[in-house]
């Protein structure tokens, strides 16, 4: 008898996201997905393919994880301090494995680069939103007189977008104290 699907698509995407996050895209076979999601293999082949589950997992990463955090940063009343708090929170999430393996978006960049157009669209949205949010914080920092060189604001935003990439490597070998200090020093470069 065929199994009926008793889970919502959203639940499946969430489960699939965890699998892609820990194992990457290429290492997950359709069979792995079927057993991890507890659905039949024909469901993966015919209904929800590995590709669409992956794209939706990435999309949900942006919508439910990253967007709310970025909107917090944008709406904060603080300047550089809101960035410091964000990066410290990221360090905690990386080290206590709330983020099971690095940042899903960075992992995807390293693994897939720009091999597929659909991934590129998600990168553009994700990093575009991140940069725009940083710019808003930097504007606020200027009003608060925190920046010595306000005219360099665009360059600072570019620099800030790069930080999460290095963090996603460094957390693997550095202690929490070292990472906090690293972030504070990185931010001191723009203050």
């Amino acid at each position: 008898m065929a199994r009926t699907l008793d889970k919502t698509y959203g639940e499946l995407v969430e489960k699939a996201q965890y699998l892609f996050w820990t194992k990457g895209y290429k290492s997950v076979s359709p069979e792995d997905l079927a057993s991890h999601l507890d659905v039949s293999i024909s469901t993966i082949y015919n209904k929800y393919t590995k590709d669409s589950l992956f794209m939706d997992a990435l999309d949900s990463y942006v919508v439910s994880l990253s967007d709310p955090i970025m909107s917090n940063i944008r709406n904060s009343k603080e300047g550089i301090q809101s960035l410091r708090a964000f990066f410290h929170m990221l360090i905690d999430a990386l080290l206590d494995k709330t983020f099971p393996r690095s940042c899903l978006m960075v992992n995807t960049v390293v693994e897939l680069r720009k091999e597929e157009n659909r991934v590129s669209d998600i990168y553009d949205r994700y990093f575009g939103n991140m940069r725009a949010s940083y710019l808003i914080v930097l504007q606020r920092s200027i009003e608060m007189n925190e920046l010595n060189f306000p005219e360099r604001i665009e360059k600072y935003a570019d620099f800030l977008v790069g930080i999460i990439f290095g963090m996603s490597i460094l957390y693997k070998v550095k202690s929490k104290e070292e990472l906090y200090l690293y972030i504070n020093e990185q931010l001191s470069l723009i203050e």
Partner: protein
Amino acid sequence: MRYKEFNTNNVLEKCIFLFWEHGFSSCSINDIVKKTHVNRFSLYNEFENKDTILLSALNLYKERYSNKRIAILNQNKPLREVLKEFYFSYLTEDDKHPPGCFIIHISTELADDNEIIKNKLDAYLLEIEEKIGTLLNKYDETKKQRKFSAKHLTGLFCNSMCFCLIQSPKEQRIYIENGLNLILSKTYTNGKNFR
């Protein structure tokens, strides 16, 4: 006695490519056999298991490719030129490897759960930091804050090895120059800011 019918380093070169393009976990011994044309028995005889193949491949990559790039840091040229050449040596595409760094790539996949890979990554980043420190020590303007700058230039290396993979060559150049300016300007302080 049988002669070994393959060259170990040639096999490892093919494995570097295979693991880099497909990820280590998704490669089976069968995939390695297909790619290298060496049979399973000989592979196990030479390397024991898949993990030892990976470690040998990492060591070969380090010896053949990374060391040459790290040696760029020994050159006597203007500081920024040396650093830029170092970063870009990883990003310039050739037909042999994808852009980026194999050690960083494998660490992204495995360093969380694999202590040996983690230690390799740690040693690799420390070596880069130390060599950059030695380089900075040669210039009066960076001597004093070489430790601080070396740490953050190593951070810029990590950033570049990931971020630059999705950038155009022009964006890469802008990103790296911008990073160098910000990090090195910290050493030029005391009123004399860099331009």
